[in-house]
């Protein structure tokens, strides 16, 4: 595969080669076999009292299988022992995980692998090696208001100590390490945004879980109080952290979009199956256009979102100057598809859809959560407008 032609920068097939196809097929079968929806429901929805809803239960054995399959390192470069697969391959893997609504830090770890890959330092490579060994990471950067920008972290490193609070950290109770975005205060050069790998059991770190709606994830606020930071924990090159984050942004948007697309396909198929078999007024309800047409619209929305997804993923590898643009389109399309489809998946199930025992609410709640991650659809459109209009 090459991108020699001046007019055709991307390969027509999105770079979806035999390796990618194999990964997709294996992942599809793996989740079908190992995490059917009734198993997921028993796992995460076993307690309906949300007062206890501060940690999502996950299946440690299943997770170990995922680690053993090497899926944490699909996007880790080959030079540090990873699989170095194309972004479109990674997207299809995450889609299958999203379709199963997998509880576990797959997306957070993949995201960190992209950020570390963009750092290009020896320390970053060492952290990538940890991922290859099965360690999990989550990126921690949000201030209290949940900003979707990279330079708003309230964390500070001064005199080798990390202090402050960071919010909305994904799967915080499941990961081994946090990749923390902090301002390094340096007497000579002022303040520099810096990326630091911190173990979850670090001294001075308190993990304060949120009570959240999504049953398949957990989320927390991290409180650092004089947590000691060694030099080898600093993974970004001096003055280059924001640049690395900028480079990794399209991949971060692609993974969450892929998760949404996969979950949406589950919602579509599950609701269509119900419409094929549920009878009212002596007909399967799929007969009624008030059921059929929203499902057709949902299908279309999913397929547009998937088209954007692969286009964005392909751009990461073949057309990096367009990757952020396309990735923002993908996240906007995926979020809108999910909002529409989640609503219809519950509504069209009727009374049963309003019960805890029906599976659709698990996916609706996961989608509501995913929609806001890294910015919702209207945020993506605002950023897209900035990107497009600045080209004039």
């Amino acid at each position: 595969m090459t991108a020699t032609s001046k007019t055709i920068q991307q390969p027509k097939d999105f770079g979806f080669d035999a390796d990618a196809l194999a990964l997709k097929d294996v992942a599809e079968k793996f989740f079908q076999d190992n995490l059917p929806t009734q198993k997921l429901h028993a796992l995460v929805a076993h307690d309906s009292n949300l007062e206890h809803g501060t940690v999502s239960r996950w299946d440690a054995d299943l997770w170990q299988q995922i680690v053993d399959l090497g899926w944490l390192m699909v996007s880790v470069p080959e030079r540090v022992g990873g699989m170095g697969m194309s972004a479109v391959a990674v997207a299809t893997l995450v889609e299958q995980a999203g379709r199963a609504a997998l509880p576990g830090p797959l997306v957070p770890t993949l995201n960190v692998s992209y950020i570390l890959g963009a750092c290009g330092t020896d320390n970053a490579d060492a952290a990538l090696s940890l991922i290859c060994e099965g360690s999990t990471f989550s990126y921690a950067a949000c201030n209290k208001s949940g900003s979707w920008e990279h330079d708003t972290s309230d964390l500070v490193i001064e005199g080798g100590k990390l202090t402050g609070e960071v919010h909305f950290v994904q799967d915080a109770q499941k990961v081994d390490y946090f990749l923390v975005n902090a301002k390094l205060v340096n007497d000579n050069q002022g303040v520099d945004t810096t990326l630091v790998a911190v173990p979850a059991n670090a001294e001075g770190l308190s993990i304060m879980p949120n009570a959240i709606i999504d049953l398949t994830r957990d989320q927390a606020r991290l409180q650092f109080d004089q947590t000691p930071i060694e030099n080898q924990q600093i993974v970004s090159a001096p003055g280059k952290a924001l640049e690395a984050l900028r480079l990794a942004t399209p991949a971060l948007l692609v993974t969450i979009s892929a998760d949404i697309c996969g979950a949406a396909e589950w919602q579509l198929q599950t609701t269509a199956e119900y419409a094929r078999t549920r009878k009212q007024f002596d007909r399967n309800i799929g007969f009624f256009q008030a059921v059929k047409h929203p499902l057709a619209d949902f299908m279309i929305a999913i397929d547009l979102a998937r088209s954007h997804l692969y286009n964005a993923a392909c751009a990461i590898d073949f057309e990096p100057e367009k990757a952020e643009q396309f990735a923002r389109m993908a996240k906007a399309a995926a979020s809108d598809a999910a909002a529409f489809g989640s609503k219809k998946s519950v509504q069209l199930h009727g009374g049963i859809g309003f019960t805890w025992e029906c599976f659709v609410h698990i996916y609706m709640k996961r989608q509501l959560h995913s929609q806001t991650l890294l910015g919702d659809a209207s945020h993506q459109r605002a950023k897209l407008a900035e990107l497009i209009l600045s080209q004039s």
Partner: protein
Amino acid sequence: MSKNAKRDTPEQEEFRRYCRDWLASNVPAAPNFKPLKNGAEVATQQHLEYYSVWQKSAYDAGLVGCDYPVEYGGGGRTHCQSIANQEMLRAKTPILPGAIGLGMAAPTIFFHGSESLKQRLLPKLLSGEELWCQGFSEPGAGSDLASVQTFAERRGDKWVINGHKVWTSTAQFATWMILLARTDKSDKYNGLTYFVVPIKSELGKSVTVRPLIKITGETGFNEELFDDLEIDDAFRLDDVGKGWQVAMTTLAHERGAGPLTTPMSGGQGLAEDKDSKPKSERSEFPLIKLAQHCVRNGEPAIDDPVIRDKVMNMLIRQVGIKQNRRLRRVPGLADSQRLTLQDKLLGTEYLQDSAALALEIEGPAGTLSNFDSAAPDNGMWPLAYLSSFGGTIAAGTSEIQRNILGERILGLDKSK
């Protein structure tokens, strides 16, 4: 007041004065729990006691059931229940716990019950001593009510009932249930029969009541299993095979379209009388305040013109719904039925869409549940969004509502 406003009859005028006098000194003190907004919300023994005492007191004073004949425990008046309702609203009384009994069972028994059933059941229903619940919906019969499968088999002078009912409010407290059952499997509409069923006395025997868990994780509804429940034929309303027609009387009164006015009491616990003018749009429209307090990407959400546009759109919908309710009472200016039939759809979809917009306003904080102390507005919005599907699904889904509008108002062919 405008010229079109209806005048009280002399009987109504006198009764209004009586109600006002009585209410001046008999409205009970607020409860030590959050006041409920309607009878279906009764969830604890404490609720039940507080509101039953109130219903009995209002009944004894003649404010509940005043249009029913004296021989059935009523007040024997004419068109006076609406007066009592207005005055109880004005006086911000507590709600009545017997909403399903008063609004649905009572008129159905009155129009279709035998003389002896009326005498036996209505007095304690009106006084609130006996609570009622409704057994219509089933797992396989939601929008299509006529497809109920709970079967009543005739055995001499008895009926033996087996089946499964769902979405039953207050079944755990009810003495009686109105029940629609199939008595003939070969005829969908003419194979239904309507019964009143004693459920409390059969609990744990041939009747099992279980709480249903909602999408939010909360309870609030029940399901009931009937396992060879035997009842007397005297508990049948109207003829065998006439259940569908009897159920129409129930549903008409549920939708406020029946001839008998439902006793309604309340105001306590309601933020605002829906007919009085609010001080400002902002105080009763929480999204503006929410958007001023929530931060989206570093700026107050209200400063984002896209959010602003959506918030204004939602405000316009909210004001429109209120004005739609006002308009429907102006003869000559609007078709009242056309507007009335829109009300459920408008209200429930507004609640759903405004909750969805609230989540958009909240951004990342919208992920937090009502059990997280950092959640804006105490985490009410994710809960409100999930709960809103109860509104768009129950009592005629939004899809069914649109059918009704197209068919009854625009005369389009039935879609079924």
